[in-house]
């Protein structure tokens, strides 16, 4: 009887909360990894053939990008963009980024009077998967809407047409590698 009472008391002791230890400490939240230094991307813009591009994060929330695109019959197009990324990086191995900004898409051609260009207001969304802080993969897309013009629009040989003929858009997706990170 005495042995049974001792065993019951031991069980009760084990089952009781450890009041003396206080709340159990939560595991420390990992420090979010900053944006990578640079993204090297293959750019897809169906129905056109793929192009290439790079994005460089000059500051934690600012990036510039340069792309070489092949938009069909009018030869290579060059694109420069800048974006602001308002969302602070969260997480380390997996991150979602949303950037807003603008792009300038342009090419050289005789028929346009020298050059044609499209000014875009754009949104860039990407997902980063980084097994290492300085190395990972990026998947993303960019969509923009803007105004197109060409050198001829400012001379004697401007084409006729409605204002809506100056409306342009771009929808691209990309995949590539993410390299580096600020220290």
């Amino acid at each position: 009887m005495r042995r049974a009472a001792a065993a019951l008391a031991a069980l009760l002791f084990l089952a009781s909360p450890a009041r003396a230890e206080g709340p159990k400490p939560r595991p420390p939240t990992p420090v979010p990894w900053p944006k990578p230094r640079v993204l090297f991307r293959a750019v897809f813009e169906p129905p056109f053939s793929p192009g290439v591009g790079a994005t460089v994060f000059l500051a934690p929330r600012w990036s510039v990008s340069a792309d070489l695109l092949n938009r069909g019959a009018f030869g290579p197009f060059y694109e420069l963009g800048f974006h602001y990324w308002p969302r602070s990086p969260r997480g380390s191995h997996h991150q979602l980024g949303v950037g807003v900004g603008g792009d300038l898409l342009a090419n050289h051609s005789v028929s346009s009077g020298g050059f044609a260009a499209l000014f875009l207001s754009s949104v860039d969304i990407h997902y980063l998967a980084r097994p290492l802080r300085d190395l990972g993969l990026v998947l993303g897309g960019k969509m923009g809407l803007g105004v197109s013009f060409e050198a001829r629009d400012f001379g004697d040989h401007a084409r006729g047409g409605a204002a809506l003929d100056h409306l342009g858009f771009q929808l691209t997706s990309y995949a590539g590698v993410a390299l580096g990170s600020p220290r």
Partner: protein
Amino acid sequence: MDAARDLRQHAPMRLHAAIGLLALALTGCASLDCGPEIDGELPAPSLRETALWSENHAQAERLVAERRAHPEQDLWLAVVPGTSEQWGHHRAPPAADDPDGTRISDEFRARLEMAWLFLAHGTVRFVLVSGGAVDPDRPDYVEATRGRAYFLGTYGAAWVGEGALADHLLVDPLAEHSTTNLRNADKLSVDLGLNRNLIVTTLPARSGLSASGLTTQGYYFLEHGTSTFDAACRRDFGYTLGDFTAESTRDAQGNYLEGIRHCGFPVELLRADDYGP
């Protein structure tokens, strides 16, 4: 020769060309090869048995003769597909808008004007106006014959080349679709010994950066692999019609001359095919 040299003006600078070649290498674009020269008797004897011969025999024989005399000429034939979309798909102008039976659409007029600039510039020496009776309710409305009448009436007096302007104007009054416009034009080119022609149509403005350019016939041809043009040709003919490249230059007056260089014809398949609507 001047025309050929001018057409090469659009060749970009070295850096640009290098980047372009890199892009081509990256993307595997089609080559600009125009294929072998067309051999055999010219004009092809089979052409004499077709519906196009009676309308075009004098011009066809003239083209062959001139070509022998000017082998250095790069492009010989500008192809102008008619269009009447201004009044709806395959619709003639309403009778009220067409009292004297000469009306053509604004877009067709712009194409003919461009063809005239190419002809006057010497880039080409002949023009083919293509387009049949597209409206079943108006068999009298034939795009090619109206286009020819407009062309001769508007530019005949300004023509300073050899012979009359009509001697340099061919017509295809059969084709009723974009696919047959080009199939007939390519077959006629082959029958005349040409392995290339210049398509004069509505091109996307601003290098295709405007959304409205996606609906133009030029975009339809230039992006033939991804537009439905190749698929439509396979469906209707069982084969595709070759390569298309944007081509542009400026004349002495500063006018912009824009067209599509078309080559890589499927010669034997075209020879075996018929002219038709």
